[in-house]
């Protein structure tokens, strides 16, 4: 895979602009670099050099090298701030595929792979396994995704409540199978493809016309990774909760007086260019004041958990989320709002650990808070 990017790999001018700017709203270009030992190999310039060396067999692949390679969230900030326009995220993903194919895996990732193979999610079995009802055909299927189901059930409750208030007929995907993005991100393509195939089979049993997601990673998986990289056909209209709600919510919300700041999840923002929809949704709520963090939109700091970092380098991930929360706190907002369950869970943990007054909220919860009660059935959408 990396061979495909040979030209681009050697287009790197070695300028070093992918490390830390401290200028123009861009703090740490690489969100994890400041929380590592800080070697060249801990940010994009050095990783590009390592990828070149891997391609040409110049370097021995050790576990320590893998640790440096994988303390990268694939957040695309380096790519967004690269003056020579290198496709750095694709390069690093291709590098991971080559490493994985050659059998080089971090032990922490190996554990996650095994859990995924056995339980179809990276968290293992549920303590209390609920009974799963036979899937019934539904026009709208809400797929919460494994992290939301396991770690942030409040998002599921909020979406369920909101769809109910809007009078939308929908089914809730009952399994906690993963979209396979965690495997995809660490380059384990064949395992990712197998999990994805099984997940898609379960989804297809509902025969949905609209597949509704809250997690940006699931959204990206169904929308582009399944068809474009895993050879799977998704036979429904995949929508993210923000784009789904945007045309339905504005005349249904009541005043909510609070000050919030929006965190652009890397996948929703830099990967999928969806910066405006969530902001428009929040601005539609009367009384709600939306304030921006110092680094926002394409400059937004990553929460530090993506790309397998949460599994392999938890301390770095925790420190990186702290940096983002400091930016949120500096806005004076009461709540940091996002749509990614991964970011949301880290924010929730981080605000508690740091005893912040700032609270973490998902956009689904905010919308549910603002949505007025169910209208007359004649006005409802079927």
């Amino acid at each position, binding site marked *: 895979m990396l061979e495909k990017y040979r030209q681009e790999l*050697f287009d790197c001018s070695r*300028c*070093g*602009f992918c490390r830390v700017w401290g*200028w123009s709203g861009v703090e740490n270009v690489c969100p994890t670099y400041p929380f590592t030992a800080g070697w060249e190999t801990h940010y994009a310039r050095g990783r590009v050099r390592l990828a070149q060396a891997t391609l040409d067999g110049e370097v021995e692949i050790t576990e*320590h090298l893998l640790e440096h390679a994988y303390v990268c969230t694939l957040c695309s900030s380096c790519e967004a701030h690269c003056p020579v326009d290198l496709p750095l995220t694709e390069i690093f993903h291709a590098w991971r595929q080559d490493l994985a194919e050659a059998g080089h895996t971090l032990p922490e990732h190996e554990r996650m792979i095994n859990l995924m193979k056995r339980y179809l999610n990276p968290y293992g079995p549920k303590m209390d396994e609920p009974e799963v009802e036979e899937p019934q055909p539904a026009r709208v299927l809400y797929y919460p995704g494994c992290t939301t189901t396991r770690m942030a059930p409040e998002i599921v409750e909020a979406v369920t409540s909101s769809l109910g208030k809007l009078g939308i007929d929908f089914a809730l995907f009952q399994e906690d199978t993963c979209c396979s993005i965690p495997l995809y991100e660490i380059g384990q393509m064949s395992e990712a493809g197998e999990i994805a195939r099984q997940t898609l089979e379960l989804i297809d049993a509902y025969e949905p016309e609209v597949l509704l997601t809250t997690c940006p990673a699931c959204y990206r998986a169904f929308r582009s990774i399944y068809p474009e990289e895993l050879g799977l056909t998704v036979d429904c209209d995949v929508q993210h909760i923000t784009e789904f709600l945007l045309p339905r919510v504005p005349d249904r919300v009541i005043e909510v007086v609070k000050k919030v700041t929006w965190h652009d999840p890397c996948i929703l923002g830099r990967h999928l260019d969806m910066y405006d929809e969530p902001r428009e949704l929040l601005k539609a709520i009367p009384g709600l004041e939306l304030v921006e963090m110092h680094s926002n939109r394409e400059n937004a700091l990553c929460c530090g958990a993506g790309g397998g970092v949460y599994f392999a380098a938890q301390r770095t991930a925790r420190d990186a989320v702290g940096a983002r929360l400091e930016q949120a706190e500096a806005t004076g907002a009461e709540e940091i709002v996002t749509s990614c369950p991964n970011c949301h869970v880290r924010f929730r943990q981080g605000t508690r650990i740091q005893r912040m007054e700032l609270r973490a909220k998902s956009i689904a919860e905010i919308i549910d808070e603002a949505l007025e009660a169910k209208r007359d059935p004649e006005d409802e959408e079927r």
Partner: protein
Amino acid sequence: MNQERVRERLAEIVGEEHVTDEAFVRLTYTRDFGTQPPRWPAYVVRPGSTEEIAEILKLATDLQIPVSPRGGGSAQEGGCQSEGGIVLETLRLDRILEIDEDTGTVTVEAGITFGKLMNELEERGWKIGIAPSGALAGTVGAHLSRPGVGWGNIKYVSQGEQVIGVKAVLPTGEVVETGTAANPAADSFFRYALGPDLAGLFIGAEGAFGIVTEATLRMYPWPKKIYLERYIGSDLPDAIDIFRQIALHDLVCYISVPVIKPDMVLFDVNVEGDEIEVEYRIEKIRGIISAYESVTYEGPEAPQAFWDYRWFNTGEEFKQGIAGAVNYFLPFEKLEEATYVMREIIERHGVKEYAQQMFPEPTGSEHVSLLFHHPDDQEEHEKIQRALDEMMDRALALGGAPYSKGRQWGPHLERHLGDTGYWGTLKALKQVLDPSHIMNPGVLGL
């Protein structure tokens, strides 16, 4: 002492986390931003204080291990490389130590990047005089060591000119403060005090005499107005004459001449000050330029757009590839000849992609040639190396004086200056200050 024992001794100074001899990490410190061949350090160390640097240099002197300081690794002449020695990366020394609004000075650690420093000052309504093109990666310590020209060349001359004082560690581990700060009872507020200007020993020295760990720079109130205009000329001598007059009358913050082609010279002028001052200066500049029919006014839009995102935009020219650079100062009267001479050499060697540029100073100009190549193209790389070698010799013969020297210029400098008193003095200073010859050997030709 074996390699592992040396690593352990370094780890005792900086901590295990901040030293490495692992091959895959060292690999990423073998090159800089230019075309010098890779050089493999035996160790990379990332100290966090002046005291740690002093201990490292003492150890290196004892064991006779060469040490090369490195900032952001974004220079082009191989000055931060080390073959078999220690690369000492300064990026952990990244604090602003004091912003003194009474004296108009800012004291920083050497490893702070310009992006961070300038942003912090701008938020407080201040600015520094000069910053390099690679401001987002480049550090103050590295810039001083070259000796630091950039955006602000005419009004502020060079980073060296902006220095009030430095703190430096000698190869023996002794710590030296310069200017008023040499008095233990005083701060750094005036450079030319006490005895000789010892700061000058470290400015432009590329770490040959020691490692600068802190610097106090002048800072200035953020100007009320910054205005830019672009011009395009078709006649190089006319353009150079314009640069000379603008510089002589001290009318601009800087003139940037990013494109010089056989029939085109593109240049931007940057003027700063209050409204009336800017208006006055622009009127004078337009008055000078209006006498030359070969030059057309292109307006403020394009240079203003460049300025707004300037520190990012400077990186974009390297879409053409990695650049071998030959940068040197010349008096205005020799710029035209140098442009033709360098172009002839570049084209004779068949180099495919290159750029010629100028960045005028008050009393002359930096003349720049950038020879681009894709680093996977070995044939082009070899052509470029041959061209660079010839260009450096010709530049010195023309009366040029290089800006950033690194290892690239070393042999050429020794050949051209070897018999001079200047060279003899440099060698004598090196012998006295660095008798074990551990400080960045090879730079400056020392």
